[in-house]
């Protein structure tokens, strides 16, 4: 059984059908990168996986459990699925430590006495142990995004979703975030990314999924997909993103 099973998912916003029958499996430990033009439905698909959007028809299962916005244990489910956003979404009124420990404490995952140690641990993993007492506003965009990743890691998720996490960053800050993600990939985290970082897609991902017009248009290992795209749409997308 795949960790994530997506079966013939359709999703419509108003009159626009954004997802037109998407099916996709992601195995445990796999790094899957979704690429495609804007409007191809890739972010929507990602948001459906942790029930931020609900699907119209079809189904999504994570660890065998059917995912939808009204599932009984939605909160428990979301504790297992981390998501990192383009805009970081750190809580501006909480210091870095509290940003990280808020959810583990409130959900009863850890005890108060262990909170700071947990924050130190996950911050070390993203290389920001010295920022534990900083306010989010005092950090650069790249650092904020790494804290956002650490905040997810503190929940010990089984799956991590990344929604264009480097798109809002200045070019010189992209590298530090990608490095953290690469390290997570090496440690065996299952990751699904929507990204425009072709270098990362090429070098770190196990599989590339090219979405086009609401469908999985083409998928395969990066080496094959980038060297020999089968469809003219993917060929032109690769050419345009160089």
């Amino acid at each position, binding site marked *: 059984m795949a960790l994530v099973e997506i079966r013939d998912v359709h999703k419509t916003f108003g009159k626009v059908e954004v997802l037109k029958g998407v099916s996709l499996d992601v195995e445990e430990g796999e790094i899957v990168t979704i690429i495609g033009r804007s409007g191809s439905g890739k972010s929507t698909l990602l948001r459906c996986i942790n029930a931020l959007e609900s699907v119209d028809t079809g189904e999504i299962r994570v660890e065998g459990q059917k995912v939808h916005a009204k599932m009984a244990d939605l909160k428990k489910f979301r504790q297992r699925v981390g998501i990192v*956003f383009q805009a970081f979404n750190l809580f*501006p009124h909480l210091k870095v430590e509290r940003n990280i420990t808020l959810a583990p404490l409130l959900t009863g995952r850890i005890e108060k006495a262990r909170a700071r140690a947990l924050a130190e641990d996950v911050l070390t993993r993203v290389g920001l142990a010295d920022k534990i007492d900083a306010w989010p506003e005092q950090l650069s965009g790249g650092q904020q995004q790494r804290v956002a990743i650490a905040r997810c890691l503190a929940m010990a998720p089984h799956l991590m979703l990344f929604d264009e996490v480097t798109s809002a960053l200045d070019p010189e800050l992209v590298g530090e975030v990608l490095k953290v993600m690469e390290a997570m990939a090496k440690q065996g985290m299952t990751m699904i990314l929507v990204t425009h970082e072709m270098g990362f897609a090429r070098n770190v991902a196990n599989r590339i999924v090219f979405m086009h017009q609401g469908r999985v248009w083409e998928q395969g290992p990066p080496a094959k997909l980038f060297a020999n795209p089968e469809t003219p749409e993917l060929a032109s997308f690769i050419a345009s993103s160089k």
Partner: protein
Amino acid sequence: MNFLPLWRYQNQLIDGAIVTLELTVIAALAGLVIGIAGAVALNGRIAPLRWLVRGYIELFRNTPSLIQIFIIFFVLPNFGLKLPAFESAAVALSLYFGAYSVEIIRAGLDSVPKNQIEAGQCLGLSGWQVFRHILLPPALRNAYPAVTSQFVLLLLGTSLASQVAADELFHVAGFIESRTYRSFEVYAVICAVYFAMAMSFKALFAVIGLAAFRWPRRR
């Protein structure tokens, strides 16, 4: 001009000022609770509750607060609810302050970006936890300046309670005036007392604001 005849009424003046402070603080705290609850209801999914809160706000913001106090003091006893002067004024002023607070706090809640709520939900927090820990602190910071200036208006507005003979500062002033016939002196003194109280609260709120909202503003 002669302030000396007022001297022997200093205890009454102090007591009046204390009652004014009590009225203000009670109405402010109760009104704040109404404000938060009302703002949540206004942003909530239950339509009849939204209409109810909307009706309450419009009623209390578009009628004279003096008449609101009168209705609670003079009219409610006809329906079996008899409240003493102070309590009537406290209830009326709470509802008055609450009506303004709802709108102020709702604006504060609306000013927090929606992606903050989403981020909280994605960490597996409950609706209440997201509200309490993620939404409310920044919302209160954004609402704080408006709430504090409304508070000063409330403090000054408590003088209306004199009209149902609650023993607050303005009512005491009327009493002293009737005894001394020193109108100018009496009202100059209580004006100074109101002014001093209002300015003190402003200073206090500035300090509280600095202590409570320490995180840096978004650049």
